[in-house]
């Protein structure tokens, strides 16, 4: 029996028990509508359906080490279309968070973006549309930063013309202290988002 595959349910059980919304994947019927509609599918090593299938197949390393779970942007396209009403985004974020706790690290640029995003939300209560990319661009060094800035110059100018990006720095939201209390508490509960 050379072609025999032994399915190991232990990783699936680990996911059901420990990952937020992890047991929702029991509903998946492998239709592929999430994988077919994800705008980031070309950048994912495994689209959501394949992640769910890998969990069932017991492929712990492939799942927790995958970039897909770190890439989900919460656009909700998959969750809206899912015929089994699986909150795909919650599962993906749950997996990312669990992977981080288990010591898996996202790709360098993903980590840089996530880290900066989190810091800005904590500091301002909002995202500064020019400060965030600038910090991410220059996280890899001066030359890389300048190159990235030049690449995105056209988009930047258009954003300015459409008043989607202000020249002046963004100010803190009202009640930033209350927001920080919430974020602190979320972090204490171990639900501080994918990349804390």
């Amino acid at each position: 029996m050379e072609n025999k595959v032994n399915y190991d349910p232990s990783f699936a059980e680990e996911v059901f028990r420990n990952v937020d919304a992890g047991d929702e994947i029991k509903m998946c019927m492998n239709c592929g509508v999430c994988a077919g509609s994800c705008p980031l599918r070309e950048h994912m090593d495994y689209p959501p359906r394949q992640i769910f299938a890998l969990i069932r197949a017991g492929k712990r390393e492939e799942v927790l080490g995958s970039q897909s779970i770190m890439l989900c942007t919460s656009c909700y396209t998959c969750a809206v279309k899912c015929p089994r009403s699986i909150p795909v985004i919650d599962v993906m974020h749950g997996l990312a968070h669990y992977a981080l706790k288990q010591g898996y690290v996202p790709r360098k640029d993903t980590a840089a973006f996530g880290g900066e995003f989190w810091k800005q939300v904590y500091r301002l209560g909002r995202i500064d549309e020019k400060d965030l990319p600038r910090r991410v661009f220059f996280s890899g060094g001066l030359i890389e930063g300048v190159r990235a800035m030049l690449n995105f110059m056209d988009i930047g100018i258009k954003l300015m013309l459409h008043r989607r990006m202000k020249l002046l720095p963004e100010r803190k939201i009202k009640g930033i202290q209350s927001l920080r209390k919430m974020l602190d508490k979320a972090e204490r509960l171990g639900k501080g988002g994918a990349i804390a």
Partner: protein
Amino acid sequence: MADVQTTSQAILVVGGGMSGITAALEAAEAGYDVVLVERNPYLGGRVTQLYQYFPKLCPPNCGLEINFRRMRQNPKVRFFTMAEVASISGREGDYDVTVKMAPRYVNEKCTCCGKCAEACEAEIDNPFNYGMDKIKAAYLPHEFAFPMRYILDPSIVGTDQGKKCLDACEYGAIDPDMKETTFDLKVGAIVWAAGWNPYDAAKIDYYGFGEYKNVITNVMMERMAAPNGPTGGRILRPSDKKEPKNIAFIQCAGSRDENHLPYCSGICCLASLKQTTYVRERKPDCDIAIFFIDIRALDRLEDFYVKVQADPKVAFIKSKIANITEDEGTGNLILEGENTRTGEQILMNFDMVVLATGMVPNRIELDAAPDVTHDEYGFFTNNPEQPGIYGAGCVRTPTDVASSVQDATAGALKAIQSIARR
């Protein structure tokens, strides 16, 4: 109006499709008085709109013709078209039913000479062909219609067009003064065979039905394949009337989907396999792709699936299509999804797309009714604490024609038992 004398020994059948006709005839041939009411101007229901049955690929007309003859020969059955149940009160053995009849504006003197349609210039969307073509506003619903009688669309009654029809009729068959009428019945038991509607494909917004002309539904495909259909039996894409070189069938279009119909209708897989054979017979060059989650061809029907699988021009691709966009220049359709067998992304171009939509049970809103009960999906359920009303056919469970006939026979037996045990 109709002088309908019935007693508590009579049976009412609601719906004159295949299930309703079967239940009515089975009960009548067992010696019971039956009254059948049908909302359409003709009997036969959805079956009359089919081109062929699966798996035998025979036309439904011969079966319908036999049933209509049984009906004509049996004085125990009385039927009313354009009639709906307005209210039901009472209980098993003692129901009072009010039936509402819409005016046809054509009486029994009609000989189907067709002079009124010749004289009439106004046209309406043809409901028999799901609006794919136009028909004169004075029309015969279809050429096998039973009863064989014309009908005037209410939109021309009282207008110049209506006057032209009236003047053209040599037999005094047109009666523009007809009004909606009602009559009362007393019956002992009821068979509920109200039938189904195809799911509204426009609700699945990412498939673009209604927006993209070359996205049609399976029921429309069935009319297109029929010789008495809008294209005379030729399969043409709606945008430019050209013969498609490749066609995609999308299974579970709205079915097995909690955002639409959570259940499997159980017939759409076979319907698409059947329609694939229509296309392949007529167009040896046409490629077919069937996109599916699972093919549900059960029992003996699996043989049909295996037969279609053997055709090298038919590809079965395991994927629920996630999005359709239209190429505006050509009207072609671009399908996106994930091939779940290989994990590859799908980006494919087709001339025409057929959505395999499921069945939605008809719900009749009654002014007053005893507990007509439904399950969570809207299908009729036989309430054991409320005997006397029995479901039959697709209003009770989504199924094919052969099973509907069996179910209707069972429904007739339940109704007979209900009367006989008192």
